[in-house]
């Protein structure tokens, strides 16, 4: 596939996403000031030393944003990875094994989904310490329920294909059927979904941090930055809007990429039968 065939919207998405990732990975080198150091007055407006001004404690806002990108993207990425591995493997297993395995797994997932995600996460996190591992696990497991349902639906369709039946008649085990027959054919819809789920993870993490149960100060993350600076809005200081804008921009750019992958998936579906 040539690069020329990637539509302009996808290019915008790819470039912006790469910029975010670059800033996150190389935060200590990219950021002009350290993350938690107080370098100026409270809520200074933007100037040549502080491009985006300072926050409620006088820390450099641009540096906080860049370090925040690091935490936000890392945790969201880990949680997405967890939710996808867990959700798709369990979803495929349920589709392939059927019977009571499917029943138990699906009803358990239904039960988890019956409780609003944010509230469930709040309850769990108010009991457990808000460390990185706990956050990733809670977010990953809760989101895996959505991935499970998609993976199961896709796999149920594939499971009735003759080539899966042929594999069964050959005497192949469940592992072969799941990883060699179903996974390669279910991958494209799942990858397209990956982008969307990643965004939902960022939103969930930001919401948790805003409510004070996510990333703990003085570490920066976009949700907690909105929280720290929200009082400034009353005084006409827009510092809280910047991390919010960053969330929106990342969401849009990842979505542009996801949309493009989704379109390509539909192409593949059309070509699969031929």
């Amino acid at each position, binding site marked *: *596939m040539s690069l020329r*065939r990637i539509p302009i919207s996808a290019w915008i998405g790819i470039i912006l996403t790469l910029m975010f990732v670059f800033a996150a990975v190389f935060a200590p080198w990219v950021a002009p000031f350290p993350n938690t150091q107080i370098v100026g007055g409270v809520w200074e407006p933007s100037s040549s030393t502080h491009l985006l001004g300072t926050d409620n404690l006088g820390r450099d806002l641009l540096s906080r944003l860049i370090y925040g990108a690091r935490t936000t993207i890392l945790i969201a990425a880990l949680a997405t990875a967890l939710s996808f591995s867990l959700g798709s493997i369990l979803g495929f297993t349920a589709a392939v094994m059927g019977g009571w395995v499917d029943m138990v797994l699906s009803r358990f997932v239904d039960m988890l989904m019956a409780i609003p995600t944010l509230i469930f996460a709040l309850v769990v996190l108010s009991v457990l310490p808000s460390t990185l591992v706990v956050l990733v696990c809670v977010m990953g497991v809760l989101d895996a329920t959505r991935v499970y349902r998609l993976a199961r639906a896709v796999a149920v369709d594939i499971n009735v*294909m*003759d*080539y899966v*039946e*042929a594999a*069964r*008649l*050959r*005497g*192949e085990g469940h592992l072969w059927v799941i990883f*060699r*027959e179903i996974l*390669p*054919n279910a991958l494209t819809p799942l990858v397209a979904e990956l982008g969307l789920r990643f965004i939902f993870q960022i939103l969930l993490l930001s919401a948790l941090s805003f409510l004070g149960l996510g990333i703990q100060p003085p570490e920066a993350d976009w949700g907690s930055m909105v929280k720290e600076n929200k009082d400034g809005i009353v005084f006409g200081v827009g510092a809280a809007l910047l991390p919010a804008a960053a969330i929106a921009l990342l969401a849009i750019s990842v979505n542009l990429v996801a949309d493009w992958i989704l379109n*390509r998936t539909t*192409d*593949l579906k*059309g*070509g*699969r*039968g*031929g």
Partner: protein
Amino acid sequence: MAEPTALLDVRDLKIGATVYAPGEPPEDITIVHGVSFTLEKGRVLGLIGESGAGKSTIGLASMAYGRGGVRITGGEVYLNGRDILKVGPRGLRRLRSNEVAYVAQSAAASFNPALKLMDQVVEAVLAHGKSGRRAVEARARELFAKLKLPNPDTFGDRYPHQVSGGQLQRAMTAMALACKPDLIVFDEPTTALDVTTQIGVLAAIKDAIRDEGVAALYITHDLAVVAQVSDEIMVLRHGRMVEHGDTRQIIEAPREDYTRALVSVREIEHEAKQPGDAPVLAARKIGAAYSGSLKVLHDVSVEVYPGQTIAVVGESGSGKSTLARVITGLLPPSEGRIEFAGRTLSPALSGRSKDDLRELQMVYQMADVAMNPRQTVAQIIGRPLEFYFGLKGAEKRQRIAELLDEIEMGKGFADRYPAELSGGQKQRVCIARALAAKPKLIICDEVTSALDPLIADGILKLLLDLQKVEGVAYLFITHDLATVKAIADSIAVMHQGKVVRYGPKDQVLSPPFDAYTEMLLASVPEMHLGWLEQAIERTRMKPAGH
């Protein structure tokens, strides 16, 4: 250019389409390369060719219509003296169903399941405002009677799901005739029907065309069928005309090699072998049911001898595919047992040993979905080698190359994906996958019915050759009696879950017949003129029966 006098005059028609292959730039291809023909009032022209020959595309183009992505790129189509490619959308709306109507292949998919048949049959006429509802309904009832539909006066009050496939196809013909068009395009109207249903529909369509005096384009891939209904035949291949002539000339004295091949299709000579002593597979008094209650097999017993072929014949719903599922272990039987190579097989798949599984292989009807689209040919054929015999590396590659040679494809295909193969090649790869396991018996479930006649012929010949070399037995499930005659040693005829006739081929295919076998045999279209009339006469079938 001369003023067109014929009803339909197609001149140098060129049709193109854009293909959007994944991962490649869009490509413009030509589907029809300049086809010309004329059709006089009241005549029937058969368009015949294999899939991809452009016959449906030409049929639709004579209504100035192209399916998604298809464009008419050149030529003229004159209907009643004016070029319908130039009349514009309004002109077309007046024209369609007034002057030209269409009968699609799948009537079941063409009717709206939420509306009564009568409402759909009269819809187009009323939309054109030619006459009042009462008059149109009377006309529809008259057509129902002419098409020999049961209870023509009340037939229109039913919903599509309440009538059979054959009846729906007739209702669709009535819909086309209701507007009194000058031309009807029939697009494979009987292809999806069972042979015993097809014969009635065919007769009804033929009578209706004659009585109404309409002209028709009859599109099909079955030369024997088109020979019964058409006055002229045009043979198409790859979007070009191969031969166009009188029906009698095409059938009895074809000029082109390709036409000759089409006419002589399924004339494989096969001497039936006598049953041996010990059967490789014996199904004893099998009974089977889906979801516990719905019984689909009753007391079925068949035997297959080593190196021989048994054909299991029947219409859709006769239980023949269920029998295959029982033998393979996908559906454990409720009664009876299966003996295979001298041992009793476990009823369920999970209880069978690796050797049981290896020696009993299966080839599917739809080769498209029988192969994982994400695996190469080498991976597909190589897996049984690895799984059953533990072959690896060079040894495995060597064996894959041998198998590809056996199916007459060559090792150049090893790294291709299924999507890069033609229909016939796909089926060959499936056969190679089954052979790779060195089976004693291969179950072939309608392996040729999704293929064009010439390709299917090639597959059947390959199977026969392989049988000679490998000594493998086949259990051949089919609804096509021509296939059966070509390859079977013994035959089991199934009807409503029971074996109604069973024995060596010659015995099953010679009189005295039971009623069902006789009807089945009489329904198979034969490649000579006047077969339809004779068949109707012979069997005195009630065409309304299905």
